């Protein structure tokens, strides 16, 4: 269960809005990511064509998903790897725990993986006596702080260097000045030993190439390489939608992924893993396991959220989202934040989980513009809102008000009358053309935003006046 959910969304968002540091950090981080991304694509004239191509590849793969998954499995097994099938998060955890138990693992080093966050693997490992160690610096920091990632790409953007220094002093017994360089050096030393000692390496997968049976990991720090090379056993947990057909397809995705995420032409390390250690190789895991994860994905193949299966988890849509930029990742309350996070949360946990979140979007479309595979997030959000409404998940006052509004909209005469009535009734509340406070039920709206006042003359009236003038 997600601990953040004890408080309602509005309160979580409110807390984020009051957090001065978070506000500053969010603005700086998201603005920087946006600029870097824009610059990277400006250097790539074929960028738009590549994005179209990437989208078409994703769709083509989805249309023959069974075929490509079968091919992937066959190739991985022919390389001596093992493939496991997990329908639910619980099953995925059990698969990993079984592997840990069978191989006698005591410590697991992990490279950043949203899929293992999604199934809450760390708690399960801990409970089973296997110490999980997050090795991405940002993830390591929030693991020490017992928190959750606040951004897909930069999990600890909500923390100051001062807070990190305090954390290291408290948790590692290392007193130090709050200098990112020094702090990074301390983390390197701490984690280096863990890499060498760990029995189990756990990763996600950015892609898996079906034709070759290759698991592909993209990292900047090098922890992906460590995790897949040093421990005896490597387990990769991957959503079924991450399979791509060929190396040619991979090149297309690599050309846009890092540019969308961090504005780099390529991330520092792209690691292609072709099975366990081979004869003659001095390093590499003796066992390789791929856990194919459904967890709500498969039912969306024919579902309203199908397009969300194309997501590369680059984080670009978070950075440009006016809502994310204000409230940050934690306020969303689930593993995946931001506009795509709302859809993924609905995918994983059902539409009821997003009855509030479905509205945490201005539907401005910035996410779709930024998305490397042009996922139509706004369309699916609207669809979700409809679903939430139809299932009667939305609170009844909200449904009542919007129901009445819809009824009114279908009756022009009555509508015009009520507009006039509204103009009259609003008088005591209008300040400078806006309504900032309303009583009772309507106050729910004005609590967090202004309502534009009903215009002195309606559009209909102005149009009629214009026509009269034109005739004159």
């Amino acid at each position: 269960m997600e601990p953040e959910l004890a408080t309602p969304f509005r309160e979580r968002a409110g807390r984020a809005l009051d957090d001065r540091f978070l506000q500053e950090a969010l603005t700086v981080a998201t603005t920087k990511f946006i600029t870097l991304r824009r610059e990277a694509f400006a250097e790539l004239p074929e960028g738009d064509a590549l994005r179209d191509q990437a989208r078409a590849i994703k769709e083509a793969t989805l249309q023959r998903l069974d075929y490509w998954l079968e091919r992937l499995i066959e190739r991985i097994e022919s390389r001596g790897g093992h493939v496991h099938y997990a329908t639910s998060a619980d099953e995925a955890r059990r698969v990993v725990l079984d592997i840990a138990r069978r191989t006698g693992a005591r410590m697991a080093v992990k490279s950043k993986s949203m899929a293992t966050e999604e199934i809450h693997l760390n708690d399960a490992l801990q409970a089973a006596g296997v110490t999980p160690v997050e090795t991405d610096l940002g993830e390591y920091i929030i693991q020490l702080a017992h928190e959750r990632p606040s951004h897909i790409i930069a999990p600890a953007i909500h923390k100051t260097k001062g807070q990190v220094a305090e954390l290291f002093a408290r948790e590692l017994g290392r007193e130090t000045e709050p200098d990112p360089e020094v702090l990074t050096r301390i983390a390197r030393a701490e984690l280096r030993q863990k890499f060498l000692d760990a029995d189990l390496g756990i990763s996600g997968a950015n892609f898996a190439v079906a034709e070759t049976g290759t698991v592909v990991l993209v990292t900047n720090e090098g922890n992906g390489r460590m995790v897949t090379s040093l421990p005896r056993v490597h387990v990769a947990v991957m959503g079924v939608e991450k399979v791509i057909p060929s190396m040619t397809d991979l090149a297309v995705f690599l050309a846009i992924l890092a540019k969308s995420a961090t504005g780099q032409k390529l991330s520092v390390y792209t690691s292609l893993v072709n099975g366990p250690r081979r004869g003659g190789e001095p390093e590499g895991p003796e066992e390789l396991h791929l856990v194919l994860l459904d967890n709500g994905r498969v039912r969306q193949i024919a579902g309203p959220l199908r397009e969300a299966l194309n997501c590369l988890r680059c984080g670009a849509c978070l950075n440009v989202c006016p809502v994310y930029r204000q409230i940050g990742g934690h306020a969303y309350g689930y593993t995946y934040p931001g506009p795509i996070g709302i859809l993924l949360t609905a995918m994983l946990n059902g539409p009821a989980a997003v009855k509030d979140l479905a509205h945490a979007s201005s539907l401005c479309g910035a996410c779709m513009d930024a998305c490397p595979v042009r996922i139509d997030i706004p369309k699916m959000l609207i669809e979700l809102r409809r679903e939430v409404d139809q299932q009667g998940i939305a609170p009844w006052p909200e449904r009542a008000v919007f129901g009445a509004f819809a009824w009114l909209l279908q009756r022009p005469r009555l509508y015009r009358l009520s507009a006039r009535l509204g103009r009259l009734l609003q008088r005591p509340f209008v300040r400078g053309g806006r309504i900032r406070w309303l009583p009772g039920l309507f106050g729910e709206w004005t609590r967090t935003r202004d309502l534009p006042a009903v215009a002195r003359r309606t559009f209909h009236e102005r149009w009629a006046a214009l026509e009269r003038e034109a005739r004159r």
Partner: protein
Amino acid sequence: MTTKAEFFDRIRAEMARTPGRAPSALAARPVRPREGLDVLRRELSERWRENLDRFQHELERVGGVLHRVAEAGEVPDVVAQIAAERGMHRVVTWPRDTLGVDVAAPLVTRGFDAAVMPGTEVAAAERARLRGLAAAADLGVTGAEVAIAETGTLVVVSGAGRPRSTSLLPACHVAVFERDVLVESLVQMGLVLEAWHEGAEPSWRGAAINFITGPSRTADIELTLTRGVHGPKEVHAVFVERGLSVARRA
């Protein structure tokens, strides 16, 4: 636990219910990638100077350093200089077969502590010892199977005599390469990867192919760019004009 059959039954059931199909197309794959790659390599051999310059430019942008030498025999000098400038003493290196030049012996002569990684299968205990050597080393010398000009990327393939840790555990990574490994773009790299996976793979090739684009980096603390978080803090590419002889070229 879900069986493979059950897992696929569910996927197929959902696929059967899929309404209308959106436009889709896979990337056009080369029909005979190895032949295609041969043709490409011939074309590229005429543009290697431009590609090397571009590679240098991009490598420097990501914080790497390019060194150019005329003869393979000068490689140990470059390595010695890099190490000496940084007060580094312990070096691990790929063997002559996979590197194309002997680096260890000349370094030892100059007083460095240089260890050569084995070229063949060794027992588990020995593997553990070798990993310890790499973990303790300051500098690691490897070859590179491809250098991508567009991104400043070195592609390093693991295998016998090509340990992964040499380019990963030491604080400084030096990769040695020559002109015929240069390609222009990621798209061309796609062709290389197709060719490498066409038909049976050669026995020398290991399980890991790593693209390395500059030194390890993070910006996880207040977005401050910091190098060398887990992988090397420095990446040096040494371009050798003549005389590098790598056995078992990919």
